[in-house]
């Protein structure tokens, strides 16, 4: 029971990457809106930044899964 509570509390850390991903995506959309031809150039660094930010959320998820199952 305690581990389930701890696992739930561990996911509070996913707030940060959520906000970060939203801000990052909105900036990418803004950049594409200003310069639609640069969409190909923007795409690769955007995907890179997306994965780096999302990784933090994944760390939280892994900790919570470990708490539930061990």
């Amino acid at each position, binding site marked *: 029971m305690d581990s389930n509570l701890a696992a739930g509390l561990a996911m509070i850390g996913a707030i940060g990457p959520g906000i970060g991903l939203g801000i990052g995506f909105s900036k990418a959309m803004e950049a594409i809106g200003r310069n639609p031809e640069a969409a*190909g*150039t*923007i*795409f*690769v*660094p955007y*995907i*890179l930044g*997306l*994965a*780096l930010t*999302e*990784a933090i959320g*994944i*760390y939280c*998820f*892994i900790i919570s*899964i*470990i708490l539930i*199952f*061990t």
Partner: protein
Amino acid sequence: MPEEGSKLIHVALKAERLFAIGPFEVTNSMVGALIAAVLLLAAAWYFTRSSSLIPTRMQSVIELPIELLAGIVTGTTSRWRGYVALVIGLFLMILVANWLGLLPGVGTIGLKGEVEGELIPLVRPAAADLNFTLGLAIVTFVVFVWWAIRLHGPVGYLKELAGEPRYMAPLMFPIHLISELSRLVSLSMRLFGNVFAGEILLATMLAGTTAVIFLVPLALFIPGMFLGLELLFGAVQALVFALLTMAYIILAIAEHGPNPSAEMDTGQLGSHA
């Protein structure tokens, strides 16, 4: 409806052992990685056996991801010959391993296990095992440390870690060291977390739709949606792993100092025509 206290799905964090050859234990994710590697090697052998300069249809389809990734790597830096093969190889391996996990039968066909009578799948997606992703991350780590030491010398590499104003070295050196080591952890954890979470998501969605099984179209649509999501995420994670490898190697090769080489254009990650 499941009764109180029972879990909806069974999730195994560790890959389950199938059999042992002497002291070496073979797990089901090893079988998954083996199948992915055999598929890749068979495709490579078959499509280079009769490759022509004017490609056939099948050949151009296979060349599509390779051209895409090679375009990104060669568009970023001019010294790409040393590692473009590694980057493309990593991308294809992780892509095939991830997409293999979406085939029917992977994760569902298995043996009856002794632990609580749970099912032990015969094949598990390779990247759903931390050992596989850690192995790939170690390869990347060794490669970029090796490149840095080869180009700048071991003393040069340590000087890079110490940072620019020499008096800041006691502070910057541990920070840089830990950030270099954390690349290992972050690469492996990112891929593992994404694929493992995708497995749990698919299992939960498939198990959860048993309540609406009388609405068959809806019950088929929801897991189908998540299967498509996993398709996309598997491809994105493969791309990200390969691109991060490329970025770390470029950062390791980059020459700092008063006269950086004119060929280095590390500020233009991703510019390809």
